């Protein structure tokens, strides 16, 4: 027993686990964990398994971009390694992954962790640890709404409130007296976009005349569509994830309701949504986008698109470069590379300064769309989109890029 105590006492001198945990931010000078003269280590959590595993293509695209940059010498001589873990789109696993990446893999920063509930589950912990949670792969407006409370977390893609404003803007200009029926997913995503839309049409003659919600677990949405069609609306705002976007298009095609159909960006995938229900049924649908569609002939000769497709072929031969998610990952990773390049010192603090003051154009984004943030006053990187209309074969861009900031009114 005495021996046992002695061992325990001896051992307690050996060190506290958090000393080597690498959690706490880099107080004082010197560099932080995960960055040396030769390497920058980033960590990500994605659904490689489970119902949302289609999103793994984003990780493929990001990894290819980093490999491409490394092949050209890296960032200031530092090669980027991107350690990804599977969370099956489950928040508890995302928390465990974040802890593992920060405390054990000792990454310099988290990048592009995917999913609204997953990022909400980890952001308190990650900010406590003072580790950057850069360019998360979700469009919730949370990420830029209160920079002071979570200074280490930033979004990337246009948030749902920005997107909603762009649709409102389109209607005000093209169909000023629109009577809108809304179908929305009953969760943070659906409510975020709907709330943004309702706020954006305040004071105009565009009116929401009916709204119906569905649960992700619902088998069909036929009754909701029937109610919306019966409301006398002439415009349909479709706030749904891919499976339900397809169901809504198919159900309307079978009915005699012919509204102006606005489909949110999340559901506007040609390969995943429009093809299964028949491209003809999707003719005339309006949506909005912010990056170049790799599947569209419009960009076939674009240098950025060629660079992307060559890079994918070389560094991610198993992935499908025509998949929009791959292009998304490539463009998000390119943004991260820009932020790393502009870092003044190899510290997490300095990376956040660089991210918070980013002002750049990413070649794979639509011309005229900037990635721009400004400290605490503007926490949203991409706040512009362009309207597109489906012509029965491809998405066709329309008009100009529309700027719509989430925070100002």
């Amino acid at each position, binding site marked *: 027993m005495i021996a046992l105590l002695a061992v325990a006492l001896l051992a307690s001198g050996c060190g506290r*686990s*958090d000393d080597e945990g690498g959690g706490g931010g880099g107080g004082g000078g010197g560099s932080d964990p995960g960055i040396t003269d030769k390497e920058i280590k980033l960590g990500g959590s994605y659904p490689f398994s489970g119902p949302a595993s289609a999103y793994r293509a984003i990780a493929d695209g990001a990894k290819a971009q980093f490999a491409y940059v490394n092949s050209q010498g890296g960032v200031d001589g530092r090669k980027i390694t991107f350690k990804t873990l599977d969370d099956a789109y489950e928040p508890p696993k995302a928390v465990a992954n974040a802890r593992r990446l*920060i405390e054990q893999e000792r990454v310099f920063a988290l990048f592009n962790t995917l999913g609204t509930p997953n990022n909400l*589950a980890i952001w308190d912990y990650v900010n406590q640890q003072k580790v950057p949670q850069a360019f998360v792969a979700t469009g919730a407006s949370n990420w830029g709404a209160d920079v002071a409370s979570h200074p280490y977390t930033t979004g990337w893609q246009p948030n749902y409130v920005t997107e909603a404003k762009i649709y409102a803007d389109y209607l005000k200009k093209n169909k000023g007296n629109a009577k809108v029926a809304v179908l929305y997913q009953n969760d943070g995503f659906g409510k975020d976009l709907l709330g943004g839309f309702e706020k954006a049409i305040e004071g105009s003659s565009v009116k929401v005349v009916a709204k119906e919600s569905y649960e992700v677990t619902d088998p069909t949405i036929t009754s909701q569509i029937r109610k919306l069609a019966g409301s006398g609306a002439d415009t349909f705002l479709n706030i749904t994830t891919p499976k339900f976007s397809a169901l809504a298009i198919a159900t309307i095609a079978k009915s005699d309701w012919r509204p102006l159909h606005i489909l949110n960006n999340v559901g506007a995938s040609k390969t995943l949504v429009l093809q299964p229900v028949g491209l003809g049924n999707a003719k005339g649908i309006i949506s909005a986008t912010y990056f170049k569609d790799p599947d569209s002939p419009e960009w076939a000769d674009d240098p950025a698109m060629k660079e992307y497709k060559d890079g994918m072929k070389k560094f991610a031969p198993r992935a499908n470069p025509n998949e929009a998610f791959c292009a998304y990952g490539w463009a998000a990773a390119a943004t991260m590379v820009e932020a790393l390049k502009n870092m003044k010192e190899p510290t997490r603090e300095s990376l956040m300064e660089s991210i918070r003051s980013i002002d750049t154009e990413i070649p794979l984004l639509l011309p005229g769309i900037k990635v721009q943030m400004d400290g605490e006053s503007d926490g949203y990187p991409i706040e512009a989109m362009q309207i597109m209309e489906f012509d029965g074969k491809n998405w066709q861009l329309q008009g100009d890029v529309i700027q719509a900031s989430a925070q100002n009114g």
Partner: protein
Amino acid sequence: MTSKRLRLAAWGVVLVLAIVLPFFFNAYRVGQFTQAMALGIAVLGLNLLVGYSGQISLGHGAFFALGAYTSAIAIVDLDVPYLLALPLAGAVCAVAGFLLGLPALRLRGLYLALVTLGVAIATPQVIKRAEGLTGGTQGMTVDKVTAPAWSGLADDQWLYFVTLAVTALMFVLAAFLVRGRVGRALVAIRDNEIAARTMGVDLARFKTGTFAASAMYAGVGGALFTLPLGFLAPESFPLALSFAFLAAIVVGGLATIAGALFGALFIEFVPVYAADVDEALAGVIYGGVLILFMYLLPGGVMGLIRKIASMKPRPRGSDDAQAGAVRRLGDRAAGGGAARERVRSQ
């Protein structure tokens, strides 16, 4: 006598290792070991039920979840100190276990397994619906346990030692329980219910009592499990968790106390390493390891340890409890021929 001394010495070594362990690993690893101990408590509880009394439960993930949410709600909404939240979670689960134990009086084998399976299937949905209490799909964040200043420990190390103390207590309790009258009664029920009743064993009392105790263990385990992560959501308690518990008792060794520890380490670490080998094939690798394990070590880790120990001359018969459990469950399983032969030849 030598065997008893050996066993004590082995436990001593385990304890010393357990005490020095958190000083050699980073915070994340220490958290994993803490979680493994919490799983170990739940696995031990299930082993009391399945290994000793022979009643199969496929629903212990539900008790684990109930314990986790009871303590989380107590800590977050009612400001109960976490050390008090543990017995509270245990008590709530004991009552729930007693109630679920009532059908166990009439149902046996597969029928009982199905009732408990139903509970496990319903659990994640129920958690999602009870949004006001549980936070629904958004989950709940529980503040991290902080180490008191006098301890000189990091937070993770402090939580580790708290969990170690609770685990030691629960294991000692279980060991006393199964070595005495109660243990003999449970094994008697498992091996022959009618004979047990003839000998004066009160079936109703022992069966519901075992269910309650077993659920209590799962509840305390669940409460401890969520503390290192500080977050829980419906996805923390999938149906697969109940099966993992079952796998753990078989991997560790049916009807053994120490086996629960090995089983818990197995289900905590093997899936993580499997995912490291190949993210897409994690399930296949985990399953493969499990199958291999059962072919090579049908008696579990403890079966192997006992086999090695029995190479030296020692009194026979001390592993009857485990051999009986393996034989009985093995007899039921179709195609379990190889495993059965191996156990019998021991």
